[in-house]
């Protein structure tokens, strides 16, 4: 299998998911601010809500896939950093994004 073609498909597909997720995320932020919801009121709505947890899990997964693949090209083209060391660091970066994202998503759910 050609790994770079697979990465390209993964980045395009995750971009499509992110386009939707970011739009919903921004709309919700604007809605929450306009309605004057307090942190407590927001937590009341998100705690135990499996729908929001599922939505933000998908969001985190898409970002986890999308960002490191994009950085892969940025590092190669701007810093000339190619090869295995870059890819290992990017895999660790992906884990960091996933951990931080899921920590936030679970933080407002649990």
């Amino acid at each position, binding site marked *: *299998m*050609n*790994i*770079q*073609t*697979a*990465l*390209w*498909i993964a980045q395009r597909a995750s971009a499509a998911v992110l386009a939707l997720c970011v739009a919903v995320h921004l709309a919700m932020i604007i809605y929450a601010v306009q309605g004057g919801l307090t942190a407590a009121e927001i937590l009341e709505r998100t705690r135990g809500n499996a729908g929001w947890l599922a939505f933000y899990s998908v969001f985190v997964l898409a970002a986890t896939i999308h960002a490191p693949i994009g950085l892969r*090209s940025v590092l*190669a*083209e*701007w810093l000339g950093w*190619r090869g295995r060391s870059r890819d290992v660091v990017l895999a660790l970066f992906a884990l960091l994004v996933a951990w931080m994202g899921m920590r936030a998503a679970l933080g407002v759910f649990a």
Partner: protein
Amino acid sequence: MKVFVKRDSGFQEFEVPRHPSQTVLDVVTYIQRSLDPTLAYRYACRVGMCGSCAMTVNGVPRWTCRTHVDRVVRNDALEVGPLKNLPVIRDLVTDMREFFDKWARAKGQFTGTRTKQDDFAQVPPQSPGRKLVDSNIECIGCGVCYAACDVVAWNPDYLGPAALNRAWTLVKDERDSLKIERLRAVAGDAGCHSCHTHMSCTERCPKHLSPTAGIAGLKRETAKALLKGEL
């Protein structure tokens, strides 16, 4: 007009008379024949067919034989240099080896299945594959797109717009038999997936072709082949 020509030692200034319908190639030829016979430059057909006279004119890669001075002159001055992204042999002459080696690396050779005993292949001009590459096959190999491409500057292994455009015309050629091998050759970091769709190649192509569209086609074809398990 003042003409600043890039020499190996730096820019050299010449005073060149203006004429109606004068091309940049006319200017360079005038300098070489009348002012400084040591100036090295390259041309052949003078009519926009051979693709050998491309240079950087006022910072932009152009085919000089079909570029009128009136269109590009600024403050009665011209700056002429060799194409970017290619090693300079001398003055305005670049080494095109790497450029054309990349066509070979992109499997730019037509590989048919018919022999001389077979009849001619019939490719209907209106068939979908042929229509997709109708303009792309007109490439004259001048190297303007390669000099204009940011990705070539960032990644010296990148095959570049012209080689990928050539591969695209063959991928869509129904007589060709090397489709999967060619897709393998153009997939990846040195190939179509590195294109950022800046479209500098399409902007600068003197034949008004769109290598960007061909590269996008290669991305689609490689993705399809991967999903089918062929890549």
